[in-house]
């Protein structure tokens, strides 16, 4: 269905893109002013002996010329060795995946539900555009979207977790985890409020794109053709309009997916959910370069992956791209 040549071309492109990202990230971070030594070690004591600092620099290869560091780094990354965190001494990769895993607990359901809800309501709203119901839904969505995420989160915690006590205040499990181990429903209970909030946010973003896309599609001639065939509105919506309206959605949505890995930093902050967002802020305060680089790489990888998926998905939906005749 999808030509191998096209796939190969996309893959090569992604690979090149990754290398470029890697390079930019490396030099960007290494040329930044300030480092771990002055920010973390020196905060412990004003009189850190020079030997200790030198030793530290040697250990992490910071005494080498930048280009040499870069070559070493590149080699290590390609071998799956993402380096060790300055502050924790642990392999960056395992640290990131430990946190990412928990971030995904929020992200995966929120993204799936958000895209689903946003797309369905957006399609409906676009189809009914100009009507009263569309107007109402549209405004509600704008309001949800315009209010900053962290504000929603603070309010939600206050109302649902503190006053009503329907949900825990934060964290990923209640204390019973120590005696009975992780319980699915317990974690769900903790994750539900942040997931709902994130779903709201992702859904409103998708809603808007989908609605616009749908409005563009229903003005197309082939919708008139479909009506002229005698199709009822529902069939036109689901069989003719939706698939076409989904085309621009695919690209935008996958990009959004890549973005929200970092975007949920606010939700994680308010809900004390120590995921990848929390790790990022920690790495930043410590000037933990290897960890930061790892986070950058992960995000680039996810984005590149998302772009690849978007390409493949849209080529699967749109025959014009598949055949390479799209301009």
């Amino acid at each position, binding site marked *: 269905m999808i030509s191998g040549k096209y796939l190969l071309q996309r893959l090569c492109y992604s690979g090149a893109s990754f290398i470029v990202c890697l390079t930019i990230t490396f030099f960007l971070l290494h040329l930044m002013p300030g480092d771990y030594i002055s920010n973390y070690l020196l905060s412990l004591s004003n009189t850190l002996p020079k030997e200790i600092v030198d030793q530290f620099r040697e250990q992490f290869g910071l005494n080498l010329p930048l280009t040499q560091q870069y070559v070493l780094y590149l080699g290590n990354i390609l071998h799956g060795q993402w380096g060790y965190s300055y502050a924790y001494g642990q392999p960056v990769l395992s640290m990131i995946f430990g946190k990412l895993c928990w971030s995904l607990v929020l992200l995966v359901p929120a993204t799936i539900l958000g895209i689903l809800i946003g797309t369905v309501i957006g399609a409906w709203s676009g189809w009914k555009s100009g009507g009263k119901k569309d107007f109402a839904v549209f405004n509600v969505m704008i309001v949800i979207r315009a209010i900053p995420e962290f504000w929603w989160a603070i309010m939600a915690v206050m109302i649902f977790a503190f006053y009503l006590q329907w949900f825990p205040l934060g964290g990923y499990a209640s*204390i019973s985890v120590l005696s009975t181990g992780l319980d699915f429903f317990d974690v769900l209970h903790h994750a539900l409020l942040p997931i709902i909030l994130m779903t709201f946010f992702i859904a409103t973003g998708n809603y808007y794109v989908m609605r616009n896309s749908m409005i563009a599609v229903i003005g197309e001639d082939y919708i008139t053709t479909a009506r002229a065939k005698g199709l009822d509105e529902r069939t036109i919506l689901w069989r003719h309009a939706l698939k076409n309206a989904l085309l621009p959605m695919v690209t935008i949505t996958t990009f959004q997916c890549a973005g929200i890995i970092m975007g949920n930093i606010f939700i994680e902050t308010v809900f004390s959910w120590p995921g990848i967002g929390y790790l990022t802020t920690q790495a930043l305060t410590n000037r933990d370069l290897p960890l930061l680089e790892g986070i950058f790489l992960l995000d680039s990888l996810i984005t590149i992956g998302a772009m690849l998926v978007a390409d493949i998905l849209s080529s699967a939906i749109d025959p014009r791209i598949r055949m390479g005749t799209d301009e």
Partner: protein
Amino acid sequence: MKITLHMRTHRTGLFCVLCVSFLLISCFFSGCTTSTAPKNATMTRVSVSDVIIPVEDTTSITYTSSMQKAGTPTGIMEGLVIKDRDGKFDPALAESWNVSDDAKTWTFHLAKNTTWNDGIPFTCADVKFTNDYMKKNNLTMGYVLKDVQSIDCPDDNTAVFHLKTSYSFFLDQISRQPGLSISPKHIWENVTDPQHYQDTQFVGTGPFVYVQTAPGYVQLKRNDNYYGKVPEVTGIVLKTISNADSQVLALKNGEIDVVTDITPTVAQSLAGEKKISVYSINDTGAYEVAFNTAQYPANLSAFRHAMSHAVDRETISSIFGTGRPTNTTFLITGLAGNYVNPADVGMYDYNLTKAQEMLAIAGFTRNSDGKLIGPDGKPVSITIPLGSKGGSGNQKVIAVLKNDWGSLGIPITTVSYDDQTQYRKAVNQYPVFIDAFPVTLHDDPDALGNFAVTPLQETNYYNYNNNEYNALVAQLRNTTDRADLMKIGYRMQDILAQDVPTVPAVTTDTLVAYRNDRFTGWDVGPGFHSITDPRVLENLTPVQAS
């Protein structure tokens, strides 16, 4: 008919997708469970009587073992001595100690019949190993022992530290943040790459024993074989709550038992709660208005003197809402006791007229706009750099300075630096900066060493250089007699009072709120400043539910 059929198919589709996402979530959960759940077979039931303490992130505890970062905060690991809030050193692994007259040889008599909590006996070999291993592997925290030449073990229960130079405050160095904790030889001697070694057992000698880590939690239980006072509480649970606001909410909800480092505002509000008590650990932090004596106009002694009368300590301290104005030459009165030179107390009284007069004498004039004109004929304006650390406290001080110094005709602007390196550079470029001591530093004359130019540190923040003072600081190191120490300290304070490299502004307390329906005894012990100090935890008693 057709329509309902459609509806149903859509609903079914939606339902299917929901099911699939649910399934996916469960997969992720199970994935997380397997990857982060403890592989520890000795998983025990948590008794409700464990103390639940919020921490910013539990992972830092498990990621970092004692060898890389000395001194775990929760009493698993221990050092030789513990400094308490009265300035005294309490025995820990060392039952007693003595020091040679030249303050170069320190002998510690170690607690007998002490075992690591995996059952191996603790001996002097562990102490010696800790020093040697840190030095050999160049562990960053080894700098705590930088003055140690070697350690001898005449027998299992005696450790003799030979220092490179005389150092009468050596106990301070190994007991105070971050201090030194002794690591088990039998564990670490097999570790070849300590930088990347991940400790999973946390073998220590302290009053608490590591049990397990679960997502968001770390559990410790009391060490029933502890050689000292065995804690009454059954254990401790550290719970991740990363932001202060949530910690307070959790305390109110009863999810946690204690919150430390709360703001005075929070303390005031919580004081009204029935089940919550608030207490303060006095004078653990401090703020000063510091001068960079190399920068105009702070290079003028007269200017510094004048401005020392333009710091409104009362207002500053009322803004902090806790603590009190400090008017020493920077020893915190509550901590340093009779090390404070009474002659120098109250040197910097708040008196704007006096300040104005002194400025006028020093050649500063006011122009028609009310701006202060310096001796160089140019208006004086002061920029204060702000670092990320202690930021909000510094701003409170600056907010008050802006009012007062503004009325003297000196406009104040601030410039922010989030990066420590840049901030340090900036401190060197501007005449005035605000310094904060979130962790107690100024509790004995040794702490006044940061006004000296030492061989290790080319210069100090204040760019202050007084030869007599430098000599006194060096002399302080190898003096062991307390009376002598006091005498030297007094002289140092006199010199500071005369040169004013800094104007102490305020000392602050650490405020702690706890659930009084769960545990009492938080405020009993002479614990230093942290609620996770073992000396605090060992005094806790559960409230009997009646």
